[in-house]
């Protein structure tokens, strides 16, 4: 009875706190500018199914893709067992589904156990890749400190979780044998149960071990769930909305800024009255481009929370490969970290509070964004359809249009385009000269 109440309280508390954090992140994402990503539902669903559920883009690198798939499938399927844990916990049952499902139950748990072993193998390999093999993309300087710890912590939690499952099932199997009952026949624990716990001759001890595994599993799930919103690992949930709201246009198409279109149209309209008082605008005048996270779109901000810092973008970035400061992964991490800060500030001090900091300058340096070739390699690489390039371009727009700050050669290039319709200093009258030259 007491354990049921304790279980219930933990359950409500755990999911309650998770919901609170989700709402906080949702509010943060909605600080972004609006962008239309509603239409074409069938194409969106298809993208989500292929890219998030089917992990299509992961398979450009088959080995990590398979390891990741093992972890992912194990994670999803294990949730079936979680349902039983919740029912058992709330109603003080023991293996609630066992009797009703019969041999299918054995099959299901066996399947979960095999997946768990695969997940364990994947986890160990992932830890080795990070810490022993020191894969370059997993050991770059933007990962120093918390991001590196975060990554290892997630993998260690996974190991603890799997250990709990096997302690629970293994001790249960051993207890059945000790009682003279037939084994459940679970694929892994019917072997490792007697192996590890077979020497224990006390039913009490075995029950305690099972309980430790059972509570351990449940507590790990709650811990993991509530760790997600603070971690890069949040991608396991956000991958779905993020791919659903993907950019469905060709990657080369950059947005045309509507505020600029209005002004340019006015400038080109011969009947426009240059002295006319501009119509009273109801909305606040918008900044050109982005200086801080609130100037970005909500999709940019969702991208930032979805990023799991795998670094495929950075490892494909021509600027980063050749030693420039730009790292598309860092752009995403900076955006998320700054957004978290801005969101916290707003909740603490009200929505007009300014801490005097901004994404551009305090997090991302000009040198980084000027190194971009807009080649779209980062966008192509991202397994969850994050678009670092659109953030880079919006930051450039702010620098150029609001601050007139850009590399001097670009000033010349822009002047040439404006004066003679070409990025170089040639007379427009000479444009057709090539046709008459040998």
């Amino acid at each position: 009875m007491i354990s049921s109440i304790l279980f219930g309280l933990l359950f409500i508390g755990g999911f309650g706190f998770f919901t609170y954090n989700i709402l906080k992140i949702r509010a943060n994402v909605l600080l972004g500018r609006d962008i239309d990503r509603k239409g074409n539902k069938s194409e969106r669903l298809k993208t989500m199914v292929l890219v998030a559920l089917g992990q299509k883009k992961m398979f450009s690198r088959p080995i990590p893709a398979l390891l990741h798939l093992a972890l992912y499938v194990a994670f999803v399927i294990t949730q079936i067992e979680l349902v039983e844990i919740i029912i058992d916990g709330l109603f003080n049952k023991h293996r609630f589904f066992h009797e009703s499902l019969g041999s299918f139950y054995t099959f299901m748990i066996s399947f979960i156990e095999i997946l768990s072993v695969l997940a364990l193998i994947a986890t160990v390999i992932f830890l080795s890749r990070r810490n022993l093999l020191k894969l370059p993309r997993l050991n770059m300087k933007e990962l120093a400190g918390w991001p590196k710890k975060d990554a290892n912590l997630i993998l260690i939690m996974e190991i603890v979780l799997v250990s709990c499952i096997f302690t629970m099932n293994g001790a249960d199997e051993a207890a059945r044998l000790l009682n003279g009952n037939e084994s459940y026949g679970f694929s892994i624990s019917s072997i490792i149960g007697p192996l590890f716990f077979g020497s224990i001759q006390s039913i009490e001890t075995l029950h305690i071990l099972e309980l430790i595994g059972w509570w351990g599993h449940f507590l790990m799930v709650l811990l993991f769930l509530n760790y997600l919103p603070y971690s890069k690992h949040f991608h396991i949930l956000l991958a779905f909305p993020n791919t659903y709201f993907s950019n469905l246009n060709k990657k080369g198409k950059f947005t045309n800024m509507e505020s600029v279109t209005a002004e340019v149209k006015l400038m080109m309209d011969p009947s426009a009255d240059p002295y006319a008082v501009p119509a009273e605008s109801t909305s606040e005048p918008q900044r050109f481009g982005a200086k801080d996270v609130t100037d970005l779109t909500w999709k940019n901000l969702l991208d930032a929370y979805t990023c799991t810092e795998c670094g495929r973008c950075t490892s494909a970035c021509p600027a980063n490969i050749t030693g420039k400061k730009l790292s598309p992964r860092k752009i995403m991490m900076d955006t998320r970290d700054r957004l978290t800060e801005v969101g916290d500030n707003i909740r603490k001090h009200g929505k007009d509070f300014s801490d005097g900091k901004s994404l551009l300058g305090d997090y991302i340096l000009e040198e980084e964004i000027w190194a971009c070739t807009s080649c779209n390699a980062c966008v192509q690489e991202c397994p969850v359809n994050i678009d670092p390039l659109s953030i880079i371009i919006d930051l450039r727009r702010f620098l150029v249009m609001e601050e007139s700050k850009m590399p001097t050669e670009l000033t010349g290039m822009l002047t040439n385009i404006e004066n003679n319709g070409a990025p170089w200093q040639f007379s427009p009258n000479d444009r057709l000269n090539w046709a008459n030259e040998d």
Partner: protein
Amino acid sequence: MSLNVPTMASMMAQGETPDVLFWVGCSGSFDDRAKKITKAVVKILNNCNVKFAVLGTEESCTGDPAKRAGNEFTFQMQAMMNIQVLNGYDVKKIVTACPHCFNTLKNEYPELGGVYEVIHHTQLIQDLINSGKLSLKDGGIYKGKKITFHDPCYLGRANDVYEAPRELIEKLDAELVEMKRCKTNGLCCGAGGAQMFKEAEKGNKEINVERTEDALETNADIIATGCPFCNTMMTDGVKNFNKENSIQVLDVAELIANAADL
């Protein structure tokens, strides 16, 4: 053979409308190396009796480098002016030899009122060959040569055109050898995003050198591209390794024009 390059204005004066407008672009008009690509395209168009025209002095920068540099004003000013000219001539179809012009005209002009069918010159040449208007007898001078194709970002990843240039190279009876990074994984030449017009940021290597290494690894005789900027970057990269005598950098249009002996 002298080139026949009619302008839209002259055609209109004669009451004629071309089937396609050849958008030459700034590189193709002013850069000495890129002009050769422009002429190769014209030779092909002339040879196949394609009814085309250029804007000539009425053409102006699409605004691509301004937009990628972050100056949306300059971009939209250029776009609106060009759209006025293009719509004034009632242009329906555009071919261009520059993937940057291609991308901007195709993807960014429609919302501003410029809606055209826009194709890259490799796609047009592919059509001409497939429809039998252009034929290469036994592949021509490139038969058996090793050719590698460098994917321009704004043709490949930006617009998913990977096959047209490759099919053309295969029509030359040449051996198409791929670099380790190609198609969706192709490495940029380093010129995009307005980098063409500025010094690279501080790093430990130039991007075009990194990319040229990929190309040299294939032991190709020729690096083919479909972009005047890529052409410049790869040519400089080859010079950096003092390999200009053993490996050529050519546009796909030049390969076809040379092979067809135009």
